[in-house]
């Protein structure tokens, strides 16, 4: 085995060093392109999914959502919120109560959910207070003031996805009328308009929790959103909160992802299809190079076998050459990707409606891609080499 491997490696080295440099270059270049293609596509889609998920967590759900179990509201929510905040790894906690309402200004009307929030801790969980495009977010003592999402206010931004259903041209300082269920109507001054670039969260409207209590004095918290420090798992946080109260339901951000989850799952499938196609291209490249080479060397291989070089040794020499092409191509591809493409994309990121997308480099995945290409190349070289070796020595040398 050692002797056979040594001869195979020797023959493979000579095949590479003394065959056409154009052939070597083409093989390595194709593997390089395939490797970059897979790495780039995956990193881009993962970056895209990561951006969407980050936006979802930061503007819509937090990491963990706490819900009532068996009733519509969470009792003693303020005490519970304070206790959750003390759990190690919890970054922020905020509680919300919500009611559907119709908002109007002049002839324009829009339906929205009005959330009663505590401004003093809402920003600990969500980015909304930092994304004000007009005016300011609420403060604890605000009364008769409302903050609108851009998809509700319109704010004159016609590029918004739901602009046609919005109030179209409401700005900070304007007065809007809110019609609550039960016939209660109240006028509010628009204190600010936010744009999270995540249209589900940009459909929200906020008043303070105390203002909400004026509309519905019996109201209680319906939902608690918890954000976690980096590296803290949702399951750990849920287990800790369960120790505080057993009568609650819990959802992770993924479980609350809704349409986003379906969207990202689709992207993952697309990514797998693209990887499959790229790997197929690599396999075909190695197959063609080996096949064409072997057609031209049929007689030579017959002679090798006649002088005592075993068939497995000859096959292995072609596999080692394929391995060389793949390792060099993958290595160069990884270098170009990490040292050239990623820094350029960091400097000039792709922009999508949810924000900037940065390539998400996964070194483990890149290693796996290299291994996958190696495995595919070994098989792609094996098939034509095996077919050539199956020909008898007589036919190979004398072409009978």
């Amino acid at each position, binding site marked *: 085995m050692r002797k056979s491997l040594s001869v195979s490696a020797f023959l493979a080295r*000579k095949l590479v060093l003394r065959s056409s440099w154009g052939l070597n270059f083409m093989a390595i270049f194709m593997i390089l392109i395939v490797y970059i293609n897979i790495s780039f596509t995956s990193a881009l889609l993962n970056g895209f999914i990561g951006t969407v998920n980050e936006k979802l967590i930061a503007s819509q759900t937090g990491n963990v959502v706490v819900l009532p179990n068996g009733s519509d509201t969470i009792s003693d929510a303020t005490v519970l919120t304070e206790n959750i905040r003390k759990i190690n790894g919890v970054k922020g906690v905020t509680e919300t109560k919500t009611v559907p309402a119709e908002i109007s200004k002049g002839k324009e009307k829009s339906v929205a959910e009005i959330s009663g929030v505590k401004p003093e801790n809402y920003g600990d969980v969500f980015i909304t207070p930092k994304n004000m495009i007009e005016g300011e977010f609420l403060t604890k003592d605000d009364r008769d003031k409302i903050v609108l999402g851009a998809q509700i206010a319109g704010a004159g931004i016609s590029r918004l996805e739901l602009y046609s259903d919005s109030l179209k041209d409401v700005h900070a300082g304007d007065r809007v009328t809110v019609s609550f269920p039960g016939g209660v109507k109240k006028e509010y001054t628009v204190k600010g308009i936010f744009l999270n670039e995540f249209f589900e969260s940009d459909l929200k409207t906020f008043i303070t929790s105390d203002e909400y209590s004026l509309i519905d004095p019996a109201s209680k918290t319906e939902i608690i959103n918890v954000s976690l420090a980096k590296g803290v798992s949702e399951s750990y946080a849920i287990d800790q909160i369960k120790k505080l109260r057993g009568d609650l339901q819990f959802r992770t951000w993924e479980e609350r992802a809704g349409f986003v989850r379906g969207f990202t799952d689709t992207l993952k499938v697309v990514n797998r299809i693209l990887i499959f196609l790229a790997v197929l291209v690599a396999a075909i490249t190695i197959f063609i190079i080996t096949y064409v080479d072997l057609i031209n060397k049929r007689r*030579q291989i017959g002679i090798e*076998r006649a*002088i*005592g070089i*075993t068939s497995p040794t000859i096959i292995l020499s072609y596999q080692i050459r394929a391995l060389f092409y793949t390792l060099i191509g993958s290595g160069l591809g990884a270098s170009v990707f990490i040292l050239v493409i990623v820094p350029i994309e960091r400097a000039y990121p792709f922009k999508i409606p949810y924000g900037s997308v940065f390539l998400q480099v996964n070194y483990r995945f890149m290693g796996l891609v290299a291994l996958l290409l190696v495995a595919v190349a070994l098989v792609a070289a094996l098939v034509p080499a095996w077919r050539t070796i199956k020909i008898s020595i*007589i036919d190979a040398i004398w072409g009978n």
Partner: protein
Amino acid sequence: MLKIDNVSKIYRLGDVDVPALHNVSLTIDEGEMLCIMGRSGSGKSTLLRLLGLIDTPSKGKVYLSDKDVGKLREKERSRIRLETMGYVFQEYALLSELTAQENVYLPAKMLGRWPKEYRERAITLLDAVGLLDRMKHLPRQLSGGQQQRVAIARAMVNKPQIIFADEPTANLDSKSGKNVMETLYWLNKNFKTTIVFVSHDEADKKYASRVIRLLDGRIIRSKAV
């Protein structure tokens, strides 16, 4: 040393059976230099391939040192070829990516000899065939005669008991052909290596210790020279 007993070989071309050898028996003694002659299509190359374990007989037996080797599996025949036999083919029988020296030592490398040992042996053999100054040349940089002498050196590298040469001078000019035959003769005389060669050139008879003639797949004459 090498014996075939009642061997026949039939090739199948499409639906037609084409007999190449009929019940041929032959014994080759150690140290012999045997020349196989005959017209084109007489079966001489087929006989050489059967003796050299490159092909298997349709019928009959092949013995090497009294052991039946005719029907061994390819892996075992390959091992015997590597350890005990050397081959010189008609033309273009060197590996194009290897230098003359590398071509010579490849079988020794396959046998697992140490690099220092096989490199030195390759140099010695190339020196012996007068090509020491060409050892770093690729086959395409060598003339036909030089290539055949490199092939002879390669055939010798594992110190084989027997060398088979299939019309080694067929594609060479007379001077180069003479040079190749003299090299084979020199090996036979100096190293007592058994040599079996196929030729259609009557002039090559003078190098042989015995000449057999084939006609239509049968030995019609065997004569010591």
